[in-house]
């Protein structure tokens, strides 16, 4: 069931009423949430629900060892390994099967690893990360051992299940505590986020995809270089709108249920360098990688060279998490290299000195570097990425540059220029809602949503990041 669909809307409304009727009993609310979350998961595929259920029990039992046994570290490592094997198996089996198959054949062994048709369970990448945050927090005694239903809900919580934001056990489990009566905070923000999410996802992102990204980048061999660049810009916008729209909706849903979940975006294309970019793009992921990969590897505490290695490992792993295939590894590696170069220039010229001196240029450079990496993110194979890149440099000699391309390309600098001004737009809109009497709000919202839906291209869009 897609989140932007009539089924979800009606189901959620019905659920919402019962959920708040149970307000004096948070434990009951948790139960309702648990059933609703598993129901949503089962609506994709019943096996996903069963699988998550079994996985939850196994991990929870192992985590008991962390709390009660004499060797908590062993249980920590075991449970992390179990979680990672689960992720690895479902996500990377097919890819590694081929890899190992080739390797075995190369080694002269005529073994055939069976090609099992594996379907990737929804949310596996996300609940694996949630699991690790839980296990580590438990080990570090940042949280107490929760009841199993709270833990199960932490993993299955539907606003964060499908595509994040990546939550932390230390932040979420206290919110699930049974003595805490919940309330809806920031309701105006909720309304703004929902309408914004639908505009971003249903209209703008879909429009860009249908009219710019798909036609141009699918057949890059047939377009002028500038058009291809316009296509890449469009993709950069599309993926941002798509993902941030989804995140906005999830944050709004969580707020409606009385929960606060981490944000994922903070005007990412305003970043002045690549490090800044990762503080603004998919923030929950960056923080998770920093806390659970980069710091455990040593972070920046073991000298310059080791730091750069840690950066590289972290970024490549991030790439692999996003998808299966060499393209993603290269995508991660490119970002790793960029950060390393940034670290080098920092140590040579002073920390972010270039960026502070020439902020607009830095922003422009960073944006274009990110766009370059998006090529690898988008293209299904390396060959396709290569084709797009070569097309940019070899197809410049044509006489006809379409007007629409030029218009589009000119919009980008304008957007980058105006972007900082929009910093407080969401809050302003939310505050503005205070002036609208609550009785007539439905009419305003309906009118806005209707307008957005009418302008949108056809169909129910899915979510890009839900594939990870």
């Amino acid at each position: 069931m897609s989140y932007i669909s009539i089924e979800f809307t009606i189901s959620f409304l019905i659920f919402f009423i019962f959920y708040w009727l149970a307000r004096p009993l948070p434990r009951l609310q948790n139960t309702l949430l648990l059933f609703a979350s598993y129901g949503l998961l089962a609506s994709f595929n019943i096996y996903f629900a069963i699988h998550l259920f079994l996985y939850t029990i196994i991990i929870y039992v192992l985590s008991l060892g962390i709390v009660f046994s004499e060797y908590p570290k062993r249980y920590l490592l075991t449970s992390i390994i179990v979680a990672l094997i689960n992720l690895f198996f479902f996500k990377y089996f097919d890819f590694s099967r081929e890899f190992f198959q080739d390797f075995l054949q190369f080694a002269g062994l005529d073994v055939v690893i069976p090609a099992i048709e594996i379907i990737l369970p929804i949310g596996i990448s996300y609940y694996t990360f949630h699991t690790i945050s839980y296990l580590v927090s438990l080990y570090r005694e940042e949280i107490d051992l929760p009841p199993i239903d709270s833990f199960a809900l932490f993993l299955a919580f539907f606003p964060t299940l499908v595509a994040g934001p990546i939550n932390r056990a230390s932040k979420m489990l206290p919110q699930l505590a049974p003595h805490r009566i919940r309330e809806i905070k920031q309701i105006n923000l909720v309304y703004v986020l929902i309408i914004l999410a639908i505009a971003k996802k249903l209209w703008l992102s879909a429009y860009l995809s249908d009219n710019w990204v798909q036609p141009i980048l699918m057949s890059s061999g047939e377009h002028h270089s500038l058009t291809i660049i316009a296509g890449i810009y469009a993709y950069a916008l599309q993926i941002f709108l798509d993902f941030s729209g989804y995140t906005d909706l999830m944050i709004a849903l969580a707020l409606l249920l009385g929960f606060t979940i981490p944000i994922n975006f903070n005007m990412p294309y305003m970043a002045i360098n690549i490090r800044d970019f990762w503080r603004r793009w998919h923030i929950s992921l960056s923080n998770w990688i920093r806390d659970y990969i980069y710091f455990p590897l040593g972070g920046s505490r073991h000298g310059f060279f080791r730091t750069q290695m840690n950066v590289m490992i972290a970024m490549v792993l991030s790439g692999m998490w996003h998808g299966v295939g060499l393209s993603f590894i290269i995508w991660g590696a490119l970002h790793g290299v960029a950060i390393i170069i940034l670290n080098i220039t920092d140590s040579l010229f002073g920390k972010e000195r270039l960026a502070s001196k020439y902020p607009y240029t830095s922003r422009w450079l960073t944006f274009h570097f990110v766009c370059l990496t998006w090529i690898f993110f988008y293209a299904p194979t390396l060959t396709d990425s290569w084709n797009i890149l070569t097309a940019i440099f070899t197809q410049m000699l044509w006489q006809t540059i379409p007007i629409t391309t030029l218009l589009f390309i000119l919009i980008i600098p304008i957007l980058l220029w105006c972007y900082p001004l929009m910093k407080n737009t969401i809050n302003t809109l939310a505050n503005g809602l205070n002036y609208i009497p609550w009785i007539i709000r439905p009419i305003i919202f309906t009118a806005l949503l209707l307008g957005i839906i009418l302008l949108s291209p056809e169909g129910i869009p899915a979510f890009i990041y839900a594939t990870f």
Partner: protein
Amino acid sequence: MNKINKPIFKVIYTLIISGALLIWLMQDSINAYWTLTYHQQSPLVNLSHYKFWQLGSKIHQDLLEAINKPRWKILDKSLSVKVTTSEATNEDNQDNNNVSSNEKAIIKTDSALTTATPPIQDIGNKKDITKTKLLLPSPLWAPKLPLTDCNPSSVTAPIANIEKTKKAIKKVEQPTELAKGKKQTIEKKDETKQITKRPKATPKTVVINKKQMVFFAGDSMMQGVAPHVRVALRKKYGIRSIDLSKQSTGLTYASFFDWPKTVKKTLQKHKDIGLLVMFLGPNDPWNMPNPKGGKYLKFQSSAWEKVYRDKIRYILELAKKHKVQVIWLGVPDMRKEKLNQGVRYLNTLYQSEIKKAGDIYLPTQFLLTGKTAGYSKYAMTDSHKKVAVRTNDGIHFTVTGQKKIAHQILSKITIKED
């Protein structure tokens, strides 16, 4: 009432009233989506005899017409170079809006609630993007220029890892070489219904000359296959083509999308079409709304079959009238058993009607998997490697699969040097 509960009541009020208003205004789209997804009439239709309820639909349609006003199309026409896909579909969509009034649930193309996913909801199809068919490369409000000096191609997405979907797919990093030398396999006997008429000799290939166009029609399967054929046709022979394939379509739900009508319009408009290639089916094997109104016609009943055959025949006769040859592709096996039986039945209908008309029926059942019957996700390449030809939803094709089918279509086309 607790003082703290009052804000929650306000929220419930806001959400429910907004939701109700939206349902009221978007009822057409919801009805269409419901029919496509659940193969029965939407429960909202029961409300349609209330005048007040109908008002919502009317407001929606009026607004849609206002947005789709022809003045933008005039702008398009004067600036676009040739008759291409984009123009054809633009006007087709425009005209689709003015379909006869006895089809109440006219679905405008701009509704967010019309489905982009096939009625078969399965997980693992990362390629929702294949179904997000785009019909024109230009924005609504900008003058439409060709993006290149070639025809703007309407395209679909290959397996893009990061494409928006709620389902995930296993990525295939295999060389996408076409299976060479795939012979036309012989149809299994039990698949062919008994043909009562004397079968005409079917031509082995279609012959067209370079000035003629090829018209691709169908659902999301065609959306995946057509681009490969089109590229080959253009690169090798300079042959132009039109691709109007559209996800979630078929012959069963005419109120959602009317293929007979669309084919008629397209053939009338583009006199130089020489070949029509049809590829659809998986959206069809369900109960069908009765054209005369009333209960839905049960799938595979004689009434259902008659209506369906009529539609196939209509298209074939149209083609004949315009001197257009037809290649009609059979549907390959599907992973879901119920769907698979449905499409195999449909294949018998296609085959018998096509053979009667003397056109080419191109089965795809064994094409992807070699000799083995039944659904298989994988096929063997010449170097004895397994390569995935179907996506995780058990319906669509990977790029490798698409290319195989495209190759087969091309093998049926002979280009006459003029």
